[in-house]
């Protein structure tokens, strides 16, 4: 099953993105913990596209696709903004005391921790493509529906 959504690069569209992911997870009867991981990862990824790839442009296209097959969800997010090198980004020091703690820089880290794999590809012709995967389990179906 594949679900797709296209939005422009505006923060206010992230509510629609979140609704889209939540609905996908609901339709696939994903467990609460899988749903949560997807919600967070997609939200962080799209926010980064808006902030860092489109650098404030509000009309950049973002295409999001969620697919479930073989017990694995694959999310791809494609944009046509600036490319970047994820290896150049320092990961946060999660053991630092408050004074030394960076205030941002947790988005990429959360995506990597909550998804099984996170891969960025940059291609001048087809845009930037982020692919995130996570093995998921379905909720046991309820015996009967509550009224």
């Amino acid at each position, binding site marked *: 099953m594949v679900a797709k959504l296209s939005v422009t690069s505006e923060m206010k569209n992230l509510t629609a993105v979140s609704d889209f992911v939540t609905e996908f997870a609901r339709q696939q009867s994903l467990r609460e913990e899988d749903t949560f991981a997807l919600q967070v990862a997609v939200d962080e990824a799209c926010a980064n596209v808006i902030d860092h790839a489109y650098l404030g442009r509000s009309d950049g296209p973002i295409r999001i696709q969620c697919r479930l097959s073989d017990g694995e969800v694959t999310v791809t997010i494609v944009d046509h903004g600036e490319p970047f090198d994820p290896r150049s980004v320092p990961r946060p020091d999660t053991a630092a005391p*408050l004074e030394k703690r960076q205030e941002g820089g*947790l988005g990429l880290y959360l995506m990597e921790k909550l998804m099984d794999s996170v891969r960025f590809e940059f291609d001048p012709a087809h845009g930037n493509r982020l692919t995130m995967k996570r093995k998921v389990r379905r909720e046991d179906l309820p015996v009967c529906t509550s009224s």
Partner: protein
Amino acid sequence: MEIKTRQLKRVDIVELHGRVDSNSAAQLEEVFKTLTAEKRLRIVVDMQNLEYISSRGLRALITTLKETRRWNRGDLRLCNIPPRIKSDVFDLTGLTPLFKVFDNSVDAVGSF
């Protein structure tokens, strides 16, 4: 998302409802800025009804935590963190030890 604030005599309670996504995190930032600008630096964030919080929401919490604690003037304390958000956001990012965390809002308010 919905943010409800309640001003008590010495403490302000900020209740987070629904999803603090990367979009709505800006509103949370606004709420905190208004409080700290008014020198209301004893803040309890009640997460009872929080569905998730993005890294931008976390940033607002950390910024405000630092601001309130400066010169020992106040603090930002958390309560009712849902288990999923506790494990998959706060513990994962190493934020848990930075905050004073309480089981319920009475204890959090009464801790000041």
